[in-house]
Each structure stands twice: as C-alpha cells, then as structure tokens.
C-alpha cells in the first residue's frame, strides 16, 4: 500500500469516527431527560410528562425503568439526566456524599416548592442534617392484612384483627393447620413474607437500627434484639425446614396463587398497592379480607398506628446542564395535582398532603384510606437512611437470615453487625 493511500485511508477513518461520535447524541437543549428507577408502565409515565410539554413547550423524554448499573456512570459522566427518580432514599444520601447530586434548597426556592405540603416522614428520608438532598415522590407503607374467612374457620372474630403483637402470635397459632404427615397446610403468619419487615417491627418495639437523628448506629439496640427475637419464634415453632418447604410452594407474587390470596397464609404484612386495582381487586376479587395498622406490643399501646414509609426519591444530578430547568420540572412533579395523578394510577401513597385529599384516592376504597389515614399518624416514621444504607441493609438482611433460618442468637448476631459497621458508619458520617 502506498503512503498516499495509507494517509487517505487514515484520514477517512478518523473523520468517520469523529462524525459517528458527534452524531450519536444530537444535543437538543429543549429536551429534558427524566430517568426513573422503577416503572412497570413506561408509556403511562411518558404520557404524564407529556403534560409538562403541553404546558411549557419543553419536551421531556422519560426512561423507565433504568438499570441500576447505568445510574452511576451517568451521574459521574458529562451528560447526566436532568431529573433522576430513585426507588429509595438510600442511594440519595450516598450520592450526595459523593457530590453526585445537588443539595436542593436552591431548586426548592427556584421552583417555589411548598415544603409544608409534604408529609414529614417521607421527607425525612431526604434530610441530611439541615440539608435536603432529594424530594419524596410517592411512598409506601405497610399494614396487617387478614383473611376473614380463615379467621372464621379458626373460630376467631373475622372483624377483629389482633390488637397486640402478642395476640397476633396467638392468632397465628390458631390459624396454622398441620397435616397428618406433620407438614404445614396453612400458616397463620410468616414475619418476613414476602420480604423483610424488620423496620416495622423494630419501630413497634420502640427503636430502629439507627438513632432517630441518624447520627448513631444502633444495630444491636434492645428494640432490634426484640424485633428479631419476636420473628424468630415463628420459625422455631413451625421448624425452619417445614416452613421453607411450605413457602417454596407459594404461587407468584402477582398472581391469584399468591399465598395470602390462595388462603395458605392467614395474615400478612403488605403495602397499600395490594388494595389497588392491579392486585387483590384484579387477581382475587372475591377475597374476603381486612386491613388495619400493624398492632403494637401489649405494654406499649401508645405505639398503635405505627407505619414506616419507604418511597421514591427525586434527585437532580450535579452535572445537569440547566439547573433552573430541572428545578422547574421538579416543582411541577411535586405539585399536588401531578402527585395525585401519578400515585392514584399506581395506587401508591401520595407524599403531598393536598394530593391526599384528591377524590381519586378516595375512589380507591376504604381499605386504601386506612393507609392514607396512617400517613398522618403520630407514629408515622420513615426508614432512616444514611450514606452506608445499602451495605448496612445487606448486612442486616444477612443477620436476619442467620437468625431466622439457622437459629442464630439475635443478640450475638446483631452485636457482630454493630462491631463490624460502627467504624464504617463513623467514617461515612465524618465522625
């Protein structure tokens, strides 16, 4: 090959690469990009944001759900989304600590966002000291669901759910049916079904795995030990293998064969979406069930109505091109009408008090209203989040598994978690 030919080919190659690189993403300043970590129905979310376009002429491009592993590269790169909706407050604080997302006071002022309209518990998930690093957009809460038919069959009053945690244990006993071969045919209550609810139990025992202000790690506090010991008794009573064998035959979560729907589990802790149109009313409309706040321990009736919110958090990446445009879109998302529209559709709890009064939430029925009312409970909390939430949650999950499935001693197990994580926590908090 001649040198001339080589030169021409080289120039062509470089030019084509440059053109490809430039052409890959046309910079359109009039398009705002919103990334959402959840979203079973991307089309509905896009249609919601199209309303912003109709109002302002600014196009909004929604990507939902976005994969977890795409979020970090985007936040550290030069072209992050204009708004990022995270599935929980956990990540917001670690992102803020790393300088990946903005502190929002300026955006709140720019967008004229009414902070008094927000329920405090979900908002507390976004507070880092006196700073606000995210805003809650819809939230979840858990309560006790009970199957009235199974209550009746067990000789219990179908209209009366257990009023204390101790009573719940008694009811569970009566509601458990063991077959002639010793295997379980029906179980009264499985404390970690369909996933961990230690946050709710530990609040009922008067604590959490962090101090209330989030400044100290209390993984081995008495409340934590009590919460895990209380759960462990169900596994001890029924036998781990027996219970696991029974649970392994459960139908899919979102199917008519889900264990509570199918009458295999008589009581469960579940979220507000269950009473919404996509779950029980659609999958098992004939189910005869009730919903009430999870009961407190007998010696602490003042803890009645305890809920622990955990919900979506909206952040603005540090590297956004136009902070003002992001702030305005954020303010629009936080407006009561939009909150009501989005979360009525999904049957999730609104984070705006004004939105909670919307007719569409009332239309979701009395059972949904139980959750809406609980949002204003004096015992409404949120999961406390810190910059090491993810790692901490994984460690607590492993500890819970060890306690429930292997019979490990709750105190010893939690002491070990505390010992391992206290230095990490202090380092992360700059203490």
């Amino acid at each position, binding site marked *: *090959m001649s040198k001339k030919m*080589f030169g021409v*080919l*080289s120039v062509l*190659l470089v030019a084509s*690469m440059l053109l490809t690189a430039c052409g890959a993403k046309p910079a359109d300043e009039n398009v705002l990009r919103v990334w959402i970590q959840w979203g079973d129905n991307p089309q509905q979310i896009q249609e919601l944001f199209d309303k912003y376009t109709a109002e302002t002429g600014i196009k909004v491009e929604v990507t939902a759900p976005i994969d*977890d*592993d795409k979020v*970090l590269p985007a*936040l*550290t790169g030069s072209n992050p989304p204009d708004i990022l909706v995270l599935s929980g407050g956990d990540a917001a604080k*670690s992102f803020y*600590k*790393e*300088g*990946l997302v903005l502190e929002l006071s300026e955006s709140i002022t720019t967008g004229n966002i009414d902070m008094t309209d927000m329920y405090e518990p979900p908002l507390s998930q976004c507070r880092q000291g006196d700073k606000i690093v995210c805003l809650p957009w819809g939230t979840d809460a858990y309560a006790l669901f009970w199957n009235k038919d199974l209550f009746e069959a067990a000789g219990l009053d179908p209209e009366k759910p257990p009023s204390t945690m101790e009573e719940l244990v008694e009811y569970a006993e009566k509601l458990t049916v063991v077959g002639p071969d010793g295997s379980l045919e029906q179980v009264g209550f499985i404390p970690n079904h369909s*996933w961990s609810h230690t946050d709710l139990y530990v609040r009922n025992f008067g604590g959490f795995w962090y101090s209330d202000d989030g400044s100290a790690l209390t993984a081995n506090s008495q409340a934590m030990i009590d919460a895990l010991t209380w759960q462990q008794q169900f596994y001890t009573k029924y036998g781990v*293998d027996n219970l*696991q*064998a029974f*649970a*392994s*035959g459960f139908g899919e979560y979102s199917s008519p064969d889900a264990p509570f729907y199918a009458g295999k589990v008589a009581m469960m802790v579940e979220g507000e979406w269950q009473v919404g149109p996509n779950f029980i009313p659609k999958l098992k409309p004939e189910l005869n069930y009730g919903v009430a706040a999870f009961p407190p321990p007998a010696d602490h009736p003042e803890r009645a109505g305890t809920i622990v919110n955990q919900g979506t958090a909206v952040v603005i990446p*540090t590297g956004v091109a136009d902070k003002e445009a992001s702030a305005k879109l954020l303010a629009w998302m936080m407006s009561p009408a939009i909150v009501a529209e989005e979360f009525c559709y999904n049957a999730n709890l609104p984070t705006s008090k004004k939105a909670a009064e919307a007719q569409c939430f009332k239309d979701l029925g009395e059972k949904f209203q139980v959750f809406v009312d609980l949002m204003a409970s004096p015992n409404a909390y949120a999961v406390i989040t810190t910059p*090491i939430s*993810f*790692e901490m949650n*994984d460690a607590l*999950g*492993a500890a819970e*598994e*060890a306690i429930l*499935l*292997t019979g490990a001693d709750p105190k010893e197990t939690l002491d070990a978690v505390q010992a391992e994580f206290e230095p990490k926590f202090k380092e992360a908090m700059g203490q």
Partner: protein
Amino acid sequence: MENSTERKLFGFKLPPKTVWTKRAKSDLRTGLLFLSPWLIGFLAFTLYPMVVSFYYSFTIYHSKRAPEWVGLQNYANLFADDKFWISLNNTLYMVAIAVPLGLFASFVCALLLNLKVRGQAFYRVIYFLPSIVPTVAGTILFLWLLNPQVGLVNTVLAKVGIDGPNWMADPNWSKPALILLGMWGMGGTIIIYLSGLQDVPQSLIEAAELDGANWFQRLWHITIPMVSPITLFNLITGMIGMFQYFAQAYVVGGGDSLGRPLNSTLFYSVYLYQNAFLYLKMGYASAMAWILFIIILILTLLLLKVSDRFTYYSG
C-alpha cells in the same frame, strides 16, 4: 527469516523474531490499519480501564471525587473481609465442581452425538437449543423447574420415592442447583467437542480395531488424547467464565437478595458488583478485580504448563 535459536518466555515458546525489511514494515502498517477499529476499542475500552482500575485499587475512590491514595489498604481490608472469603470460596466451589462436571458431561454428549444413528441432526439441534436461550430466561425457567413443591424436578424425584430438596432456598443446594442450570446450557462446549471428535483420524481407530482394541481402549488411547487440546481449551475458557460467574446469580438474587440464602450464592463477581455499584467503593472493587485477574492468570499459566503432559497436538 527465522532465527534458529528458540525464544522462550516463562517457559513458553515465542514466535521467531521478525526481520524488519521495508516490505515487512509496510505490511505491519497495513495490518495495523485494518486492525485499527479493534485496536482503538481495545485501547480505550479494555486496556485503559484496566490500567486505571489498577491505580484505583490503591486508592479510596467512590465515584466523582478525586481518588485518595491509600497504598495497599484496600488489599489488606479485603483479606480481613469475611464476605470476600465467602465469595471466593463459593466461586472456587463452582470452578472445582461445575467446570470438570460440565466438561465430562459435554464430552459424553458429544460422543453420543457423534454416533451414526438415524436423526442425529435432530438430536444435535436439541442439545444445542438451550444455549441460545437468554441467560435470564433460562434461569427463570430453572427456578420453576426446581420449585420444591410444584417443580418438575422434585415431582419426578417424588415419583421414585425421593424427597427433593428445597433447591434455591437451601444454602446446601443453591450452588448444585446453579450447576444443574449451567449443565443445561452446555451446547457450545458440546459443539466444540463434536468438531474435535470428527477430526480424530479414522485410520487410527481402524488400526486399533484391527489390533483388537475394544471400544473403551480406543476411547482411552486414541479419542481422548486426540481431543486433549479441545479439552484444554474448554477447561481454560470454562474456568475463566466460572470465575466471572454473575448473571445467573444476579437473576436468582433478584436485586435485593443477592447472595441469598445465607450468602451461598454470593459469588466473587456479585460481591464485586455490590461494592462497585451499590456501596460505591470503586477502589475496593478495583482491588477485588485485580485479585481475580491475578488468580485467573496464575491458574491459566499453571494449566498451560501442566497441560504439556496430557495434551497431544497431532499437527
């Protein structure tokens, strides 16, 4: 243009030294030009990240802020980290059991698929089909097959009087369950073995037959030695793949429950992913990646070295 003295590096033979004539230089330039799309990709997306991750492994680096040099701290912390050892153990378990088992099963299947029977093409397709099922779909399918109460596997076991295990819910059975899943998708390895088997010279087999060798003797003394380079290739690629085992464990864990039950499916790459993308400990994760790289490198070199004794290259 060959240099008569043999050149070696770490005991491995190197190609003969090139004499740089004008023609050779021009050929190199042209070759590089044609290679350039790959070369640029390799430099930018493989070599550069590797070099940078080596640097990060000596730093505390989360994501955006400048990395802070801490020397060997990450490595020291890793060696004191229980989860690191658990994840390494789980991964070694898979390498030690799943890889040889997979090789053996693939070889046996390839032998069967090499027989001259009616409808062989159909059987070959059947055995290869699972390999084209996406990992996520295959894994979810297996979760159903292995469902302890309603799954096909335990139903069949129950028919022969065996009380099947809880598979994915039981820490003692979760890894064997994943190994079963892996065996289902061994079509690729079977195909490579099959091509190797078809390369075994028929003349040798016939000569052995004339000498009175039975089927097993022919297999042991002719077929297995003749496909030994294929075995080595499958062993090395299988081992490397298994050290990087991730997707199936990620699907089984379903995001929030990675490693469950009781950390029995916490594989090396899963823990690395958690550190990098969930805990934002990029420096720590980089150190993990380099330890894995070194383990794989040493084991591969060792295998290549040892393979001299059991690999036969007919060419």
